[in-house]
């Protein structure tokens, strides 16, 4: 009884849980926490929800124009009518070619950074260079493309020069994702292989790369999405306002040579929105929606791939 009296004196009654009743300080702490959590939650919502709204507006306004014919027709009547076939094919060219240039260099660079590079100042400089390469403004990449590929290498304004510019620009994406994919392969795999007498390269070729290949692929897919959306680097290196391309047949699927200039979807969106007068709203909205759809679906493939891999991982 004396104990209970002492407890009551300390503000604790013997009814059920009130022994653990919150003090004022405690209550204020919880209140502050709740306020903070709701404010932060609201901030996050306010970043995400308007964008959902914007996307909805874009899709609604694009709906009347979007059709199979819109995708497969060339632009007509000074780009105020017709579809986006020629720019779409141009973007495809640029993506494939830039991938062909960037993927080998990027993957090997990732291999170097994760498998060969020691922990020294040289490696630190390489890492710094990758970070800086990723941070160079896209318009500076365009200037570099003009100076190095168009003029110095004599490629002229062409698909080739634009693809090389895009390749350099997207290189960091491939390098960092390759490095991450390789770093996820357990060190014990390599050690087991070395103990069998395999050389460094044999280990990489037979053990490390096969185990990391899917992670590397996600990086390559991301490069595709990045290259497809970029506009500034191709502005002066190969993209043009309008090229007359064949309307039908096989020639319409392969309208550009490597040394021709080409149209590109991202640049096309820019021109029909701001440069050409008399373009109906629906046409530019539809072009924007196709570009977003392209980029987002490529990204979703990459994300899906990653989720699938995470589920399948055996170590």
């Amino acid at each position, binding site marked *: 009884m004396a104990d209970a009296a002492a407890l009551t004196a300390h503000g604790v009654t013997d009814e059920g849980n009130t022994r653990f009743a919150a003090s004022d300080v405690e209550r204020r*702490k*919880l209140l*502050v*926490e709740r306020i*903070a*959590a709701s404010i*932060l939650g609201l901030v*996050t919502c306010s*970043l*995400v929800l308007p964008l959902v709204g914007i996307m909805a507006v*874009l899709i609604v306004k694009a709906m009347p124009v979007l059709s199979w014919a819109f995708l497969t027709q060339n632009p007509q009547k000074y780009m105020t009518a017709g579809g986006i076939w020629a720019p779409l094919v141009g973007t495809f060219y640029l993506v494939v070619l830039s991938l062909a240039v960037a993927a080998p*260099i*990027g993957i*090997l*660079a990732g*291999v*170097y950074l994760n*498998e*060969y*590079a020691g922990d020294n100042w040289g490696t630190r400089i*390489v890492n710094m*260079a*990758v*970070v*800086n*390469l990723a*941070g*160079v*403004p*896209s*318009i*500076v990449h*365009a*200037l570099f493309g*003009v100076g*190095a590929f168009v*003029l110095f290498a004599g490629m002229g304004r062409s698909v080739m020069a634009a693809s090389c510019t895009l390749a*350099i620009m997207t290189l960091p994406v491939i390098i960092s994702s390759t490095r991450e994919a390789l770093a996820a392969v357990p060190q014990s795999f390599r050690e087991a292989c070395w103990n069998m007498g395999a050389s*460094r*390269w*044999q280990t990489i070729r037979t053990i490390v790369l096969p185990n990391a290949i899917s992670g590397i692929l996600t990086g390559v897919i991301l490069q595709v*999405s990045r290259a497809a*959306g*970029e*506009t*500034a680097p191709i*502005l*002066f290196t190969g993209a043009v306002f309008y090229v007359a391309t064949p309307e039908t047949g096989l020639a319409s699927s392969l309208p550009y040579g490597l040394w021709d200039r080409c149209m590109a979807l*991202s*640049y096309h*969106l820019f021109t029909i*929105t*701001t440069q050409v007068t008399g373009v109906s709203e629906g046409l530019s*909205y539809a072009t*924007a929606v196709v*570009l*977003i759809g392209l980029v*987002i679906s490529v*990204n*979703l493939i990459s994300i899906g791939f990653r989720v699938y891999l995470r589920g399948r991982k055996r170590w």
Partner: protein
Amino acid sequence: MRQTLSNRLGVAAEPIIEWTIRLCGWSAIFFVFAIFFFVFREGAPFLFGKLDIVEFLTNVNWRPDSRIKAQYGVLALITGTAAVTALAALIAVPAGLGAAVFVSEFCPRRLREVLKIVIELLAAIPSVVWGFIGYMVLNPLIIWATGAPIGINILNGGIILALMSVPIIMSMGEDALRAVPDTYREAAIALGASRWQLVYKVLMPAAKNGLLAAALLGIGRSVGETMAVLMATGHSIQIPGSLLDPVRTLTATIAAELGETVEGGDHYRALFVIGTLLMLMSLIVNVTADLVVKGVRGKQNG
């Protein structure tokens, strides 16, 4: 022991393969220097020949096409870039870091996965699409809300740039918070801290440098962004007086004018000088961010 032919070939080729890999690894350094070199090379004759660097940086007038006296002053352009970037940073840094804290510490796991995917998709939207949104969607909204004669201005560009840099700030901020060891969290909770106290008193100080670097890189991206500001901030080259004034940024000037210049002419070379300036700015931002992050790592090790 007899080796198979392919084995022997493999062993012979190994040094070649290893050197190829090394060269590719070092190529990143090469490319950074090459970018600097080629951009600088095109601008250098003008920079060292006719240009007065002090006048270049302090003259408000950018009139490269003037027949009477062409003037190359980038002060108005720098002000434009600064105004749009400052507005974007003002919105994006608190919002991005707040969202990072929410995603990292407050939200349930399922929601976190979903939000991270949404953020990743946001980061993937091309800048020309953001420009399009500014030009077509935000422009009428701003005219309607403020009564300004034209909705393509600092406000528009700032909002668009903020939306573009939020994903970067958020994902890097979240990484920084995640990098704080869990023992810190456990210790704080064991002492009876609420989650907010944990964030405010423990995680923020511990992840300070990472969060700072996230903000820096987000701002760096705003400075270098081209297509979105080209479409969303208008084309008046002026020192802005209010949020509703249209301005022209450094990047947009290059994008808008390079196509019309004569190769090798003064105007053409002046644009490359601006490019060199932008390149230097991005190098400074990135190296600073890197040093800030490395600084904290060094302290923890020591």
